[in-house]
């Protein structure tokens, strides 16, 4: 039988270097965040480096961050969902309408999330049953759902008479504290990270994104996993929708146009591969924060919106290029 055991553990020095290099690769986006923050801090110390400014950055990043958590799962599973911007609008509209109809706030919020999840299921079924490309299906859904939101709201924002606790979810409370929405983001991030690392479902969706044929061969229920992932992605967009509604205090069918690109950018800057199989929660959060910091910093510098967009686009390209180079080097 087998007498020789071949385990080529590398020398201690090499192990140390390899760990350093791979944590550098994983910490790449974080280093980028620190560098960009340092840059803005140096340029506008008094206005940038303040607790209430950090609170504002976190508040502005929350909706994108939560939706990006769901998008991380979708992208790791090898898919993409371009309809999340429209879902944020739709979820807000549904929540507002139900509040207008005197529903209790929690029920209205859950119904808004459920509506988004149902749309996600629909996208997922179209993709798996009809074997259509996710890009194409969700592109269509993006338009259809935006139209649905506008129709439901009669093409105008939905104003509400009464204040509910939903409006306080995104409210900046005062020095030394953060809006509840930010804490919700943290909790959800921990849950998603746990899902990816410690559960069978997490491994299944990673396998599907990495090599669908292998996943199928190993008995992974590929179609079921894909639909679940789209439902989750849309549900997280729904949570973002409720928070966005709380922030705006109106149900606005025209909100979050183009948000899907920022959400996907956050995931990609964080190191996920659009072909699937790779991605982390910390990376996504860092990616979302980078974009939040850039928006905030550019405002402090008095740069116009168009310049902000150019800067953000440049950062996305640089981040992805650096990340690829680092990964290729550490192989």
């Amino acid at each position, binding site marked *: *039988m*087998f007498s*020789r*055991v*071949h*385990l*080529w*553990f*590398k*020398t201690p020095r*090499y192990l140390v270097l*390899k760990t350093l290099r791979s944590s550098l690769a994983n910490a790449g986006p974080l280093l980028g965040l620190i560098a960009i923050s340092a840059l803005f801090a140096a340029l506008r110390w008094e206005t940038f480096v303040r607790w209430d400014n950090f609170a504002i950055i976190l508040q502005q990043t929350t909706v994108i961050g939560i939706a990006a958590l769901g998008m991380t799962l979708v992208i790791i599973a090898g898919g993409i969902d371009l309809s999340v911007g429209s879902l944020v609008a739709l979820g807000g509209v549904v929540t507002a309408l139900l509040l207008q109809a005197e529903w209790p706030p929690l029920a209205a919020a859950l119904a808004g999330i459920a509506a988004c999840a149902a749309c996600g299921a629909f996208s997922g079924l179209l993709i798996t049953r009809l074997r259509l490309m996710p890009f194409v299906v969700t592109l269509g859904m993006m338009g259809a759902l935006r139209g649905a939101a506008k129709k439901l709201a009669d093409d105008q924002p939905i104003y509400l008479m009464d204040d509910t606790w939903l409006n306080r979810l995104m409210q900046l409370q005062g020095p030394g504290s953060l809006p509840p929405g930010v804490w919700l983001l943290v909790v959800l991030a921990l849950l998603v990270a746990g899902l990816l*690392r*410690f*559960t*069978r*479902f997490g*491994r*299944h969706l*990673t*396998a599907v994104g*990495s*090599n669908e*044929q*292998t*996943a*199928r*061969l*190993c*008995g*992974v*229920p590929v179609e079921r996993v894909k639909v679940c992932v789209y439902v989750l992605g849309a549900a997280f967009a729904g949570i973002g929708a409720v928070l966005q509604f709380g922030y705006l205090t109106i149900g606005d069918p025209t909100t979050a146009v183009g948000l899907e690109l920022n959400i996907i950018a956050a995931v990609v800057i964080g190191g996920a591969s659009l072909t699937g*199989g*790779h991605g982390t929660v910390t990376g996504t959060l860092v990616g979302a924060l980078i974009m939040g910091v850039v928006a905030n910093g550019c405002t402090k510098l008095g740069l116009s919106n168009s310049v902000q967009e150019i800067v953000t686009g440049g950062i996305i390209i640089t981040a992805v290029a650096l990340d690829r180079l680092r990964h290729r080097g550490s*192989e």
Partner: protein
Amino acid sequence: MAAPLLQLRGIRKSFGATVALAGVDLDVVPGEVHALVGENGAGKSTLMKVLAGIHNPDTGAMTLDGAGFAPRSPLAARRAGVVMVSQELAIAPHLSVAANIVLGAEPARGGVLSHGTARRQAQAALAQLGREDIPLDAATGRLSVAEQQLIEIARALALGCRVLVLDEPTSSLTSADTARLFTLVRRLREQGTAIVYISHFLEEVQALSDRCTILRDGASVHTGPTADLSNDAIVRHMVGRSVDELYPRSVRTPGEVVLAARDLACLPGVSAAALELHRGEILGIAGLVGSGRTELLRGLFALDPVQRGEVQLALHTGGRPTPARRWRDGVGFLSEDRKSEGLTLDQPIADNLVLPRLPRVFRPRDLAADAAAWIARLGIRCAGPTQNVGQLSGGNQQKVAFARLLRNEADVLLLDEPTRGIDIGAKEALYHEIDARAREGAAVLMVSSYLPELMGVCDRIAVMCRGELSPARPAADWTEHAIMLAATGAKAA
């Protein structure tokens, strides 16, 4: 012996901490076929990549015709007359034959393609190979695998080739195409080209090569005329110890039927198949490429739908058959294509190993420890359970795929070409494992295109021909000749 055309001295190459080449010497003489053999991980591919300009050696010197040879890129090597035709075909399927032959070195004047010159070059290359019958304008993707390989060799010749490296050229060829390739190689040899022939198949090395160099652990351990080397001597040099029994065959008593199929049809590949698989036996399925053997196995494993007939599994615990249920019932499947189906190459070994059987919630540390145990048991050469499977050699990748079946406690093993493209050492390990499993009562169904392997490992052999499976007969009743006759559908005289 003529003066060496190509000389390699003391070539060293490391990738990080992995030493791929630890000082290799090689001499190639014009007008000879020089075989290069060695286990996977011995350094053959790396050495050839250094030769072809894909890698630069860390130390060592190469000379071509007495002058220093240090190609910076494959094109530079090609212009110098050193070309490698790799195992994975490098042709552009949408381009014509002529376009493929001049690819990368198209004759052009000021950037504008000279069609006439290109066609003449392509025609001349095909003539040198004796295959002017291939039309220059045919879409290369439509040609057979053997013809595509020929186009790649023609590309090598189009710029004038003095050293042609063939890396495992016959792994996807039928025996008829292999014979044609041999004729071609001999023809090139007559013309004065030096050919470096890399192969795992020792019968090919014996039949074709003049001299043989054997690599082990990144160094050349022996060089000499092939006529002076027996197969056993070659293998002994390759693995460093005598391999007395490559095909272990322990005493096994077949038990009850665990898997049966009657009148099975899995279109488009399988039209009529019937078999009975017993505990404790190894049933081999021979046949030509394309005869439907893979489709049969996939149908048995419920990966592809079954049109007619039923698969009866003694261990089946109910429900419509799916791959997940097959794994649960103790059936394991080893795909013939480990790179694109059998394994997720960009994921760690542990993830690949545990995928069919995962608890709902777990600690990654436990999975890694579980994987490490299997790595030790099968002797998989790797840096640890978190290394990406794509970085392992072919033999070690196959061991990971096989360990997946063992970890899943598979009682019925469906193996599709389990030893394709892996080295002698890994083959030996797998044969031992398969034999041990069968001895312990597992049932093994093995598809293979390598007749010595079928005859050596299997208890019974059935032959598949154009979608129909013949009845299985004891291996002792078959000869290689009889198997080939049955596989081609010819009736024995």
